[in-house]
């Protein structure tokens, strides 16, 4: 199996008529890494993936796989393979013929391509289903077959378009682990499109957060979660309060917010407010504070902490946090400081 290749996008733009779907993005994905393109629907992540795959032509810019500029090449000549959303298995072909399809197109003889397909079915643990039709498989099984079909061309980069969205939550977690395992074992570069930040965090080496056709922020999941740079990033990644204070906007993780009594002296930022909601969540307690004339701030307190402090609804408190844990957000003209709220 070919090892993974790096991918580089240089000022890649996609226009549909006058609508810009992808706006001159630059991106470098190192070889052998797991990259998630993350963002809300319509952010351009799928268009980007389809341009990398060659199913959509780039309006301008260059797409470079390894050392080769593939911008003008057909999908099969790029060293990429795509796993489609809802898998797009050929309904009239058996599992083994689905997997062997690309080799058949190359004119590989039947015994040879079936032998190769069997190897790949073994890799995804589907060898005993070789003779079945796709309609006779469950969603998870279909996905394994789709994975095997994509891998048979020995691609250097595997492109996955929302691969987990068609599965139920339980199966999603299992397949997620399996994707990660396969990626690690095969050493391929995976580029995975998703709108689920939990999926992106669990899988990626590199998260590329997209919004409105641009890359909002990129980095390791830890970097993005701990240091969101924009309000959009802080809200989309979840678990943060976006708090405007003294002309700046800060992102503070909900578990790093502290609640103090109004009469306690505070060294640092202080936002007074009233507790409006207390939600018990099992391992922690979520306390919502309606600040005076400002946004609602959520505080995640551990069980013990909550028991020690004994808050009640209607209580006056002052919200504070360690300034070292807060990130100053880059203001974006478009997102002119609306009310801060928790995006879970």
């Amino acid at each position, binding site marked *: 199996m070919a090892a993974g290749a790096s991918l580089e996008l240089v000022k890649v733009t996609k226009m549909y008529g006058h609508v810009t779907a992808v706006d001159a993005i630059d991106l470098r994905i190192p070889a052998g890494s797991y990259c998630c393109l993350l963002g809300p629907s319509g952010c351009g992540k799928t268009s980007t993936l389809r341009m990398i*795959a*060659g*199913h959509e032509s780039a309006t301008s810019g260059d797409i470079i796989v390894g050392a080769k500029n593939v911008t003008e090449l*057909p*999908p*099969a000549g790029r060293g990429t*393979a*795509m796993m*489609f*959303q*809802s898998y*797009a*298995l*050929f*309904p*009239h072909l058996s599992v083994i013929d689905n997997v062997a*399809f*690309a080799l*058949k*197109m*190359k004119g590989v003889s039947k015994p040879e391509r079936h032998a190769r397909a069997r190897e790949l079915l073994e890799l995804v643990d589907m060898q005993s289903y070789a003779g079945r039709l796709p309609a006779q498989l469950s969603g998870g099984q279909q996905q394994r077959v789709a994975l095997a*079909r*994509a891998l048979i*061309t020995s691609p250097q980069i595997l492109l996955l378009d929302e691969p987990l969205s068609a599965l139920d939550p339980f199966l999603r977690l299992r397949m997620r682990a399996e994707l990660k395992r396969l990626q690690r074992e095969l050493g391929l570069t995976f580029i995975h499109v998703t709108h689920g930040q939990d999926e992106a965090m669990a899988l990626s080496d590199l998260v590329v957060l997209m919004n409105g056709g641009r890359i909002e922020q990129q980095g390791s999941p830890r970097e993005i979660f701990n240091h969101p740079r924009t309000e959009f990033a802080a809200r989309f990644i979840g678990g943060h309060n976006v708090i405007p204070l003294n002309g700046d906007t800060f992102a503070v993780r909900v578990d790093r917010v502290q609640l103090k009594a109004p009469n306690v002296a505070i060294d640092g930022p202080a936002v007074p407010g009233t507790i409006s909601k207390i939600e018990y969540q099992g391992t922690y307690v979520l306390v919502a504070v309606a600040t005076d004339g400002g946004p609602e701030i959520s505080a995640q307190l551990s069980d013990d902490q909550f028991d020690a402090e004994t808050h009640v609804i209607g209580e006056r408190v002052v919200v504070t946090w360690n300034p070292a844990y807060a990130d100053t957000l880059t203001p974006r003209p478009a997102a002119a400081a609306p009310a801060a709220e928790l995006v879970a």
Partner: protein
Amino acid sequence: MLSWARQTFPAPSIRIDRFSPVAVTIDNSPDTIAPADSGLRRLAMRSIAWLQAGPMMLVFALFFLLPLVLVVIVSVWDYNEYEMIPALSFRGYTDTFEGCVANLPELCTILKTYLKTLKLCLLTWGLTLLIGFWVAYFLAFHVRSKTWQIVLSLLCTIPFWTSNVIRMIAWIPLLGRNGLVNQGLVGAGFVNKPIEWLLFSEFSVVLALVHLFTFFMVVPIFNSMIRIDKRLIEAAYDAGASGWQTLVNIVIPLSKPGIVIGSIFVITIVMGDFVTIGVMGGQQIASAGKIIEARLSALQFPAAAANAVILLGITIIIISALTRIVDVRKEL
């Protein structure tokens, strides 16, 4: 629907009475009604099912099965020059195949006629399939907007706004010896005298049949094609398939149900056709349908019926061969 279910399914309590031996054996006197009652209910349920299917069955029996049975019965009646005689006789069949064995290896009239009909049918089928497939392919894969797909499909139905006969007759001024096509060809100097075989020939018959029936191919094939997930085409492209390979490996196999249904339409219509072949062939070309018509006009009903039965048999054989290739019921 719901109320029907409530009425007809036996209540659970009665079921227990009926199926538990304890209730039946011990509690003899009060519960003896229960089995009978539940039996009645089951009978009612079954009769309701029959009633629901009834109207369609009645129409089917009255207007299809009954005439068909009559045709088969009449086909084994005797006849003379002016009337049919209700007595068992295979004269209808023997007359039809007269001389078929004696004149071998020379083909008899009936075999020649059927071969000619099959030839016309095959040509028409092949051409309608070819044209119909491409039209459907264009509509399904090249026309992106739903609105244009509908507009263009409706455009295909425009010929059906006028009668079959008018559409056939319209060919005559076009293809005749002094028709538009010949005038054009002679005028342009491609030929020095008008082409004779343009009209009242097998060419004109096939042309008219193709013109009339291509639409019957387009609709079912188009219907199959728009159900093909476009991502399958992309997946094939992703796997390195060329356009032609995608067509052969993906589009054609997945359009098979439509192709078979369209083929059944065209083949059954053309096999029995006598009007088009009559008009466009200048009444010079024999066909299976024309034999029946000729026998009918000679008032030889048993002979006509015998020919109808033979034609039906041949058509059934062709169709069952086609449905062997694709299980249409499964694909619908």
